[in-house]
């Protein structure tokens, strides 16, 4: 399986494959890569300071998320794993909602029920992610069936890691997607690790893209640190899907530069030089060189982008820390569409208990 690459690691492009993206959009893509990296740093720092409980960085994997969202239409649905927050931001998901979600406070649109990082948005068609690995893959196939059934020209894309290819829902997802020819893009972020388990212990396959054929699907392998390759592959897959030709499986080869989450210590299992090799392939630096060479970006502009986001986020954090936790009722709402008697009773119990002191 040969890997599709458009920008090589030193940032030179191969003009014959270069997608036709307007300057303004290219710069926007870059800005959101910067935002993702910045938020990762903030999240990890807040966690280390004990101000939020958890953080999931996607450092090193900015090109996949941003390249993919840029290649889709805004009506297309995204089924994220958890390393694709940039896709929501790119579409306009308000940072205030993110920060309140981090602090699981009363303003958190998800009512303080999820680990920081696991947010979704109906408005931005970014499905609320799970934590059990792989479950979204078959769900995305089912959602794809819905667009087709409703005769909408919508496609969807579902993200998952290399580890998730071992899950049951990966298997059923690709199988159902292929059998029902759903307009679904299966996007695997092969970042080489599932927490501490390396790819070589995850599968015996020479490449993950080899899995596609077993479902009768086209499978391609791309350089996931090359945002133009990502854009190109997703764009083509979406075209196929929209034309009724069914799913495509994309394996994006990338690397998890940070820890798995704030709970993880990769020095326990990861050879240092492995990481060094990969850091050289930083997707942001590569894209920056390209934009500079195109004169779409000036030297120093990156820092400006960064600091303007920085100010915005810091303000939001300061506010978010002031809010209270969600109201007691939120413990019981949304279990069902209504509040059955037993939940009413449980709410009453807890409310009356809170009024009493020991």
């Amino acid at each position, binding site marked *: 399986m040969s890997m599709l690459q458009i920008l090589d690691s030193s940032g030179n492009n191969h003009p014959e494959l270069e997608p036709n993206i307007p300057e303004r959009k290219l710069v926007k893509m870059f800005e959101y890569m910067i935002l993702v990296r910045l938020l990762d740093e903030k999240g990890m720092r807040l966690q280390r300071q004990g101000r939020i409980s958890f953080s999931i960085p996607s450092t090193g994997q900015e090109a996949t998320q941003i390249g993919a969202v840029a290649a889709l239409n805004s009506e297309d*649905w995204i089924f994220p794993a958890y390393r694709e927050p940039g896709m929501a931001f790119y579409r306009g998901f308000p940072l205030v909602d993110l920060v309140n979600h981090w602090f699981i406070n009363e303003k*958190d*649109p*998800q*009512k303080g*029920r*999820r680990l920081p990082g*696991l947010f*979704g*948005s*109906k408005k931005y068609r970014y*499905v*609320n992610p*799970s934590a*059990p690995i792989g*479950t979204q*893959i*078959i*769900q*995305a*196939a*089912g*959602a*794809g*069936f*819905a*667009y087709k*059934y*409703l005769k909408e020209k919508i496609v969807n894309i579902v993200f998952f890691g290399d580890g998730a290819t071992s899950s*049951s*829902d990966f*298997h*059923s*997802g690709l*199988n*159902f997607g292929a*059998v*029902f020819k759903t307009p679904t893009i299966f996007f695997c972020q092969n970042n080489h690790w599932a927490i501490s388990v390396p790819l070589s212990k995850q599968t015996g396959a020479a490449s993950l893209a080899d899995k596609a054929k077993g479902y009768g699907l086209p499978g391609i392998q791309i350089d996931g640190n090359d945002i133009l390759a990502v854009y190109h592959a997703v764009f083509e897959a979406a075209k196929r899907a929209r034309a009724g030709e069914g799913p495509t499986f994309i394996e994006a080869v990338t690397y998890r530069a940070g820890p798995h989450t704030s709970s993880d210590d990769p020095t326990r299992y990861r050879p240092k030089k492995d990481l060094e090799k990969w850091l050289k392939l930083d997707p942001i630096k590569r894209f920056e060189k390209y934009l500079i060479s195109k004169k779409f970006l000036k030297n120093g502009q990156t820092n400006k982008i960064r600091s303007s986001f920085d100010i915005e986020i810091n303000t939001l954090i300061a506010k978010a820390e002031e809010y209270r936790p969600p109201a007691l009722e939120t413990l019981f*709402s*949304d*279990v*069902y*569409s*209504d509040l*059955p*008697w*037993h939940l009413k009773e449980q709410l009453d119990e807890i409310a009356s208990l809170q009024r009493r002191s020991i």
Partner: protein
Amino acid sequence: MMPELTLVESVRLALEEELDRNDKLIVLGEDVGPNGGVFRATQGLLEKYGPQRVLDTPLSENGIIGFAIGMALMGLKPVAEIQFVDFIYPGFDQLISEAAKFRYRSGGMFTSPLVIRSPYGGGVRGAHYHSQSPEAYFTHTPGLKVVIPSSPYETKGLLTSAMREQDPILFLEPKRLYRAFKEEVPSGDYTIPLGKARIAREGEDVTILAYGAMLHVALEAAELASKNQKIECEVIDLRTLVPLDIIAIENSVKKTGRMISITESPKTSGFSAELSAIVAERWIEYMEGPIMRVTGYDTPFPLSLEQEYLPSAKRTLDTIEKVYNF
């Protein structure tokens, strides 16, 4: 004159009428297409509604449930058949980690109101894997509603309600009643609300809580108790296990002061335990005897000795006497 239907024909009719009324409704499962379901619950639906609305799926229960969740997230109304509920377990994760929690975890933003219907229960010489009554697992899973009908008429009314709910529903069909008897089942739109039990027999002496196939065991035992010992049992058909009709239970046990429940599943941690616990917690001062359970035994479902395993009228009668003569 109303048509007389078996329970499985009533399932079929409920599906057909709702397919007619709701063009977002999709039926899916293994063998639901040309074969019409291994019990014929979907017979003729493919021919009438076509392959976009009646889907034969690959052999994968996590696939069926996960695919249905995806449909439901996008506004369709999937009604999935799991061929035997014994085979739902490969899809357990999708059902309990995903369908049951989507609304809650997303702060109400995303919902997956699918219906899963599945034959359950023993009495058909199906052995381990075609006989189980695993309802307790699902009643222990907040976010799911669990419905079990006991007759053809009840089935259509409850299934129609289930297909209009905003929440994920597990609808378990007592397969041993599929063709056991016929009953008048109106065609056209009628529903039986979820969460409301039904007094299937009135009585003053002992309350029997039951549902599905065990309702008929309860009724048979109640007749025997009345005839032989002049003990009058009040038999309640719970219909919906979650949410439970607590008022119906309260009224009855306060009146009778005695309670037993019948379930086919293994005893330990079965739904009967919940029923006993509720009564022991709320109305113990009304109780004039032990709160007892008639259940399957704590073994995998057997074959040769199936009749010994399943709660019978005789065993129930014995329990009624124990509770009454305490």
